[in-house]
């Protein structure tokens, strides 16, 4: 029924947004790492520096925050339902 349809469509759309955002965010992190290595001239080899930096990023809070893409619309819908029907 209608709620199931909304949930499915919403999940698909938000997943697409999440995937695009993830790729974009990781690419930006890579660019920043490369620029930082170029500026400082080290330490170590470039590829190794970038690889370790990306490993750190993979476990970081910033990457987990992208899951907020699922949380925020759900919260907005819940708020709308509350203010429309119960307040």
């Amino acid at each position, binding site marked *: 029924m209608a709620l199931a349809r*909304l949930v499915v469509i919403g999940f698909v759309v938000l997943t697409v947004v999440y995937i695009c955002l993830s790729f974009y965010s990781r690419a930006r992190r890579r660019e920043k790492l490369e620029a930082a290595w170029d500026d400082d001239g080290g330490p170590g080899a470039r590829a190794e520096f970038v690889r370790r930096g990306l490993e750190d990023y993979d476990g970081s809070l910033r990457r987990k925050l992208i899951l907020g893409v699922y949380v925020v619309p759900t919260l907005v*819908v819940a708020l*709308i*339902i509350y203010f*429309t*029907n119960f307040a």
Partner: protein
Amino acid sequence: MAYVKWSLILAFWLIVAGFFHYTLPQVDIVRITDTYEKRENPGANSLFWSSGDAGSASGTSGRDVFFIQTRQVGDRVMVYRNEDTGWSWPPYFKFDTSNLQAEAADLRSTAADPQYVAIRHYGWRNEFLSIFPNAVSVRPVDGPDAAKPLPWVNILILTLVAAVWYGLWVRWRRFRARRIDPTLEEIQDSWEATEDAVAEKRGRLRQWWAEKRRGY
């Protein structure tokens, strides 16, 4: 040609403006005179009607719809419908239609002893299409000159949409400047080079033929 381009742009923005004017909430100060239900059969105008109450069977041909009759401050009348939007469009997630009808019925008043309300609604009243704005909430106010609240939701949504549109537009322009314009210029250049080459070959061919005829 320029007229065509500008009229298309104008038509596009008119549609966008109409869409937002229809979908975003507005508040009217009115006096509720009566409430009623009526059997409705949305046909050609069904785009402007909602479907049945949330959780009920869908696809039935006729259904009873709540209405709220009001008199506006300027002595014109306005009739609102009162329907669930449910989980579908527009995203008001309105499920409390019957409750709202009960509130509206309780706030009925006469001209002699008026009770004014602020009624939040969306949609248009068009007599030719028989469509009505959909009431979302009612709230009693002091009198006909009560101040309407600032439309925060509208401001927020329109600002977000404008920001997204601007972001897309800026990126489109940058993309065009970087990729499409140089490609078009290359096409232009290669076309001119071809023209030059053809003209040169023609010139040499003519020269060869003239020598043949002269014999030297």
